[in-house]
């Protein structure tokens, strides 16, 4: 693609194509978008985050974090992340709600959260989920980066077997893809919403995953989840369930949003995008844009609420 207008949002792209897209977006919107490298993957690839900010000062404004593709095979998430990035640049100064958010807050978007895994899905194994780190004493590779966070790490709901898909890794933050985000969040200190996007099964979830005990903000999180799901469903009629991770799907220790919630980020959510099972992780490319459109409606609901309910 010559620019981000001619970039094809209706197909899946390689890591190089997505990284080129990010560079184009930054070049086209120098006063709104910048690219930050927050770390390197196990295999040495750079980990990039797009920063959308209208501030001209060196300040850490209240911010919203969105990440897509921590599980590499969930291709519709990276594709949706790409669409979100373009959407933000298109809607700023056009959409009142987004403009108001961006005039007061920054948005960070990590489109490919697990670059090694994503590259591997394009080259060797389309259904690879984990990172690509080596595990001592076994031929099995990688850890589940959504079990690697320092939130009830290693407790039930994760596996200690390196050959399983939910292997938690050897220690909290042992995966550089996780550690990079941890360092970024802790250095920033002013992130107010953290939204981690997965697929599939059409769910909007909030903490906790490691315990069935309700989170202290359970009532507000639940109400906001309902509003977000209603907004999502209004776009294409897609049905979503919502609730805590533990009560809605299953126990999952060491997961992303339990950690972010524990860091004081009240609006911590995780999505599972389309579909309900017909295609699983192999969602046809024709569904990328509808998926992104409906998810955007839910994201806007959460971002707007975060903006209007400072804490």
């Amino acid at each position: 693609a010559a620019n981000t207008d001619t970039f094809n949002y209706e197909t899946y792209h390689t890591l190089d194509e997505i990284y080129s897209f990010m560079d184009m977006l930054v070049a086209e919107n120098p006063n709104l978008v910048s690219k930050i490298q927050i770390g390197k993957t196990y295999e040495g690839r750079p980990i990039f985050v797009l920063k959308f900010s209208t501030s001209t000062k060196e300040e850490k404004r209240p911010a919203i974090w969105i990440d897509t593709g921590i599980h590499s095979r969930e291709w519709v998430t990276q594709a949706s992340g790409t669409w979100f990035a373009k959407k933000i640049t298109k809607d700023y100064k056009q959409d009142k709600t987004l403009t108001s958010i961006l005039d007061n807050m920054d948005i960070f978007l990590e489109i490919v959260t697990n670059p090694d895994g994503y590259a591997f899905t394009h080259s060797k194994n389309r259904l690879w989920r984990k990172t690509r780190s080596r595990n001592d004493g076994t031929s099995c590779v990688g850890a589940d980066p959504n079990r690697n966070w320092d939130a009830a790490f290693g407790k039930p709901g994760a596996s200690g077997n390196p050959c399983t898909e939910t292997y938690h890794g050897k220690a909290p933050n042992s995966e550089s893809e996780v550690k990079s985000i941890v360092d970024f969040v802790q250095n920033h200190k002013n992130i107010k919403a953290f939204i981690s996007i997965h697929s599939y099964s059409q769910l909007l979830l909030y903490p906790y995953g490691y315990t069935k005990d309700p989170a202290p903000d359970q009532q507000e999180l639940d109400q906001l989840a309902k509003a977000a799901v209603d907004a999502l469903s209004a776009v294409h009629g897609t049905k979503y369930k919502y609730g805590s991770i533990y009560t809605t799907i299953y126990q999952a220790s060491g997961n992303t949003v339990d950690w972010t919630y524990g860091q004081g980020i009240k609006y911590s959510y995780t999505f599972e995008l389309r579909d309900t099972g017909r295609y699983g992780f192999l969602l046809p490319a024709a569904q990328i844009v509808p998926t992104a459109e409906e998810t955007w409606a839910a994201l806007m609901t959460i971002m707007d609420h975060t903006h209007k309910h400072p804490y």
Partner: protein
Amino acid sequence: REDFVGHQVLRILAADEAQVQTVKELEELEHLQLDFWRGPAQPGSSIDVRVPFASVQAVKMFLESSGLSYSIMIEDVQALLDEEQEQMFAFQAR
């Protein structure tokens, strides 16, 4: 490139807690090399699992002998992957 010819994705319905536990036992049978796309959770919620060609018969027998109902969600994973590749090539050519 790894191929997935003959791999099927089965959707299993566990009606009660005992059946959920049965699927958890299945999950622990490493030699079957199962890939749970949606793991066993509460009774009534569906469980999706990719089964390699070599394990399809054994898994189906296990499910049937345990009284677990299932359906074939994806008949041949490789066929879907081939379609995905064709679409991507077509877009690149365009």
